[in-house]
């Protein structure tokens, strides 16, 4: 029974992705399918009736009834520690969605496309990258992924091997510490890195920026200063620290 658009869902799989994040696959009854970049609201109800709702971007897209999210643990959070530390396959929760038509890529949208992720902001961009690869459009996609350290990168293996197999090209940025052998700089994404890694302004790329609010605003402002048109920049802010 779908009560107020909330669909019952069951955790099908839970796997550690980074020291603080977990990938969850949820089997959702009657899932209507989703476009790349959309999100769901997840509702948890305690035995005494207390409820909490949080939004999570989907890493998956398409019609399959099993959807995929990645949850990064917020220290002292109420919901993310439960999803990252406690929830087990077989556990039940409720899902509303798919939600959001703004931060979405459709195969008919003309390229090139620039994806820019900060931390857990990579999740909806992974959905977009998967859709682009499946549509044979990966050659016109680039991803700039900023993380604190290499081990904090969710979907690191998928993105690295994808890039090696003719998938979306990935540029890594490390803000706290780089992996051994790294020849680039370490620190916040700056104009020089954007100029070096992002599709040039003349190619009029469609840009998707997702991550903590401070990161998104810093990057979006820098892109506009570099000459990108604000109308070609889509943003999704996750709140939290920069």
């Amino acid at each position, binding site marked *: 029974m779908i*009560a107020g658009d*909330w669909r*019952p869902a069951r955790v099908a799989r839970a796997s550690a992705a980074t020291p603080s994040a977990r990938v969850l696959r949820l089997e959702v009854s009657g899932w209507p399918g989703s476009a790349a970049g959309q999100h769901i609201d997840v*509702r*948890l*109800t*305690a*035995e*005494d009736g*207390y*409820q*909490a709702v949080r939004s999570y971007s989907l890493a998956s897209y398409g019609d399959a009834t099993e959807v995929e999210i990645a949850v990064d643990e917020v220290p002292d*959070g*109420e919901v993310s*520690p*439960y999803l990252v530390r*406690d*929830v087990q396959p077989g*556990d*039940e*929760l*409720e899902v509303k969605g798919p939600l959001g038509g703004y931060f979405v890529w459709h195969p008919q949208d003309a390229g090139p496309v620039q994806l820019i992720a900060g931390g857990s902001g990579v999740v909806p961009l992974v959905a977009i990258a998967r859709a682009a690869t499946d549509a044979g459009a990966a050659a016109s996609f680039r991803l700039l992924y900023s993380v604190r350290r290499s081990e904090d990168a969710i979907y690191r293996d998928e993105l690295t091997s994808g890039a090696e197999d003719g998938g979306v090209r990935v540029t890594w940025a490390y803000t706290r510490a780089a992996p051994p052998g790294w020849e680039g700089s370490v620190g916040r994404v700056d104009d020089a890195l954007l100029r070096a890694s992002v599709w040039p302004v003349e190619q009029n790329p469609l840009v998707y920026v997702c991550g903590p609010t401070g990161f998104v605003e810093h990057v979006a402002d820098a892109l506009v200063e570099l000459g990108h048109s604000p109308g070609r920049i889509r943003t999704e802010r996750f709140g939290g620290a920069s």
Partner: protein
Amino acid sequence: MAVVSRGFGARRRESDPHLPPGQYVTEDFPVLSAGPTPRIDRAAWRFEIREGSELLAQWTWDEFVALGVEDVHTDIHCVTRWSKLGTSWRGVSIDTLLAGVDSSASYAMAHSYGGYTTNVPLAEMRGGRAWVASEFDGAPLDPEHGGPARLLVPHLYFWKSAKWVHGLTLMDQDAPGFWEQNGYNMHGDPWTEERYW
């Protein structure tokens, strides 16, 4: 009945009886402002009490300080859910500022340099419950935190403690200030969670 999630709810924050509902203690002092920080020179600073178009009282900085600055130890509660316990201020009591003012008004609109306004009933500011504060934590109040002086009404949500305060306009009827026109409660009592419209 919604689907119950096994084991959920164990990590919910317990309410602390010393705090108003929904608040959490912080050791920081977050800065939240609607616009840029005004920079006001003490030589040019004035505190005014008006009613309608009439100026009832006015002080320069030196005159203000000469009224008598007292110590204030209190907890403050922001509507964005942080509370800071045991804060120390020094300021001139609103009772002192209103002492020579002859008015039957029941409300005041606090005006700040930079245009910010917030409304407070006079009854909430009398009786040793409100000050114009010039020092925080033993030092002159930082411009980021509202210096040279801010209104301090600690028993209401902290958006009522207008930074860069310039004066009070007394009113017979209550009227909404800036945040009160933009989604926040006219009264703002943290203990009954009067946050929003």
